């Protein structure tokens, strides 16, 4: 890609993830547990934008290795008896991750009335080390039409440093300010 530079930043190396939940508000401190609760801040974080009435959780089954299939269990928790919904998967970078052969990219799921959830496993094959992503989208029929909830599931494969793309060129100004310089179209 033109004008992009990949920077490797040391990041925590992750082993196989335990259950991770759709945060609604994301990037938050871990939930308090008994005995460690604190008074709520008056200037807290907003819950995030409106979306489909479904929660996405996932669990990576095993440790991902390059060239080895790894299964990811995806669980959808539907609010208020949503029936049925469509789950689709996408991989942004085929050089980093591939679907296992015959893995469907889209499937319709029914929600179990008793548990209020549906589970599905998807198998992918990492093609290199790094922090790789599988995009998952749940499409839910509602009175307002189909609404979506998306999530990128990270897979830490080997040395899982975060790769950061620069949208332009990082420059230091004479006053020490750091900017990202983006080229202008000119006329």
């Amino acid at each position, binding site marked *: 890609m033109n004008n992009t530079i990949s920077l490797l930043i040391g990041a925590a190396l992750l082993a196989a993830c335990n259950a991770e939940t759709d945060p609604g508000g994301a990037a938050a401190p871990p939930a308090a547990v008994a005995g460690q609760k604190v008074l709520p801040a008056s200037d807290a974080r907003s819950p995030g934008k409106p979306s489909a009435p479904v929660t996405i959780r996932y669990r990576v089954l095993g440790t991902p290795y390059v060239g080895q299939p790894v299964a990811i269990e995806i669980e959808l928790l539907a609010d208020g008896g949503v029936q049925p919904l469509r789950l689709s998967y996408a991989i942004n970078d085929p050089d980093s991750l591939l679907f296992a052969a015959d893995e469907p990219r889209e499937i319709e799921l029914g929600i179990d009335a008793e548990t209020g959830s549906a589970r599905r496993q998807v198998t992918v094959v990492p093609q290199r080390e790094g922090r790789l992503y599988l995009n998952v989208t749940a499409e839910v029929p509602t009175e307002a039409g189909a609404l979506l909830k998306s999530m990128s599931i990270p897979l830490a494969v080997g040395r899982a440093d975060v790769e950061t793309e620069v949208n332009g060129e990082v420059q230091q100004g004479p006053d020490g300010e750091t900017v990202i310089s983006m*080229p202008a179209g000119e006329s």
Partner: protein
Amino acid sequence: MMRHASNSPRARSLLPVVLLIAACGGGGSGGGNGGNGGGNVAPVADAGSDRSVAELTTVQLTGSGSDANAGDTLRYAWTQVAGIPVTIDNADRAAASFLAPDVAAGVPELLTFRLTVTDAAGLSGSDEVDITVQEAGAAVTISGVASYEFVPANPNCVGLNYLATETRPIRAATVQVLDAASNAVLAETTSDDAGGYALVVDPLRSVRLRVRAELKRSGTPSWDVEVRDNTLSTGLPLGQRPLYTLDSGAFDSGTTDQQRNVTATTGWGGSSYTGVRAAAPFAVLDAIYTAMLAITGVDGAANFAPLDAFWSVNNTNAQGSGTFDENVAAGEIGTSFYLGSIDSLFLLGGANSDTEEFDDHVIVHEWGHYFEDVFSRSDSIGGPHGFGDRLDMRVAFGEGWATALSGIALESASYCDTQGTAQANGFRIDIESDAPSPRGWYNEFSVMALIYDLWDDSPAEITTGDSGSIGFEPIFRTMVDRQRQTAAHTSVFSFLDGLVAEDPASQPLVTDLRAYHDITGSGIYGDGETNDANSAEPADALPVYTDIVPDGTPVNICSNREHDNANANGNRLSEHRFLRMTITQPARYEFDIVTDAATVAQLPPDDPADDRDQSDPDLLFYLDGAIQNRVVNGDSQGLSGVANRETFTTPNVLAAGDYVMDVVEFRHKDEQTDRAAFPARSCFDMTIRPAP
């Protein structure tokens, strides 16, 4: 006359020269140095473009060298070969400089410089550049239009329509002329609402244009908005991470006024992003500007607290597993959100996943939370929320307000959220009409449609209660005055009560909208509300507030998670229960909440070593929106974690006034609890009495 410069990209005239030879190895200069028998070829020099400069200015000589032999070490030597002698600074570097001499008016002086590039084997190439020194004349004006490309969504919001990309002005942004070599700011202004700018600079300078992704205004109104990348320069505090700028190439300011237009392009290559996504930060900036204009349209004296908007191509909806700082640095922000503790928006930008820069309603929705934070008040407890959820009323109001504001500020009821591969997917919410059943005070989409319908002046839609319009000003005034100061929790009740007090003429419209959305409770506490959301346990949804007298009279109240899902969001109707009390006698008070016998009977025997299977009531209490719980000996009163009981005595005297309380079963949202085994409903016996 031809000037020979071996492997030079251009032919030049020969002039009498004075050679200054820098230290170098063998090999000639200025002549042809072809390849030697070993395959080494001479490097190629480029001394830059001929140009004119002003007298008595520092002139940059910007040269370069290239070599077909990979790994060859190159040395540089600048020499002057014609004109008034000058001293070349850094003559042994590709980038050198000199001070242009004083020249007579109307008598320009030609100076010629040669750059010789020599490789390790002694082969060299050279090139020359002519610099014409003129007397400095009158300042010149550089003017033009700064714009950005905006990609609209398809009419049904299923994806972005890149074929319909339109050009919009970059409004109210900082525009600068910089010295092309040093990036020193030579002149600065703010673009107008047409994107127009004009700057006066010295003539004959090598300069560039820069448009900063920021809005800065002092005085009244005032604002300070910056769009930055949270994933770069992560050793810096968030507020110092790189600011986005749109930069032109270097050009000569010349001797006459000139027009220069700059455009931030999308970077879209037809099927994917292939270039720099320069438009994105300015699209974010412009959405925020639109929102601010909606406010200044009703309050010209509004002063906006500084706001950072963090957008990055690396910001994805992946849930990071590290600390907040680590996740933000990695771009794993989960979703777009506003963080009040640092007055910052975080916006998704990861292509082929979810991007926000062209979803302006999403941006203004999150900005709506910033508005609540700095102009109004929000008691929202946050948490996941979706279409049709029966929510805690505080969450329902905050989310409904934010989405309604997006429709009002953007004057469009079509809320689009595009996402997916190639940004080709997405969904639409009709802000005016998409309130799912059951409508009510716990439904963020009811709140959304109600507030929007208060404002919009579309033809009367009696069937949806939209029988009129009051405009935005009463809504704004209510939010910044009465909602901000309400003694109750912020909800649609406190808002509507405040609105009618602020604008009595709104009563008929409010009545009609209440009827449509089945919001029957009155006053700031929703007294008499009858809409129980079709709850299996109506008594756990209503009344909205339960009265408790602080004289020891017991009250039984239940926390019920029937409207929550297995994710235990903890922010649904009936989970947090509200009480109100009036203190007439200032004193210290004792609060005592005990899980009742019927609930305890459903629990296993208490194992003091592990209380996670026991009830854990929590209580917070407020006066005029301010939390009154204290921290005593490091522990937060009301959140002790003691099994089946919460009891504390206030260390301070409580003033007379109207208090509200929030009681909840902590186990309903505790990740450590086995909720399948824990009752869905916990009931508590509660008393409040003056401390002995």
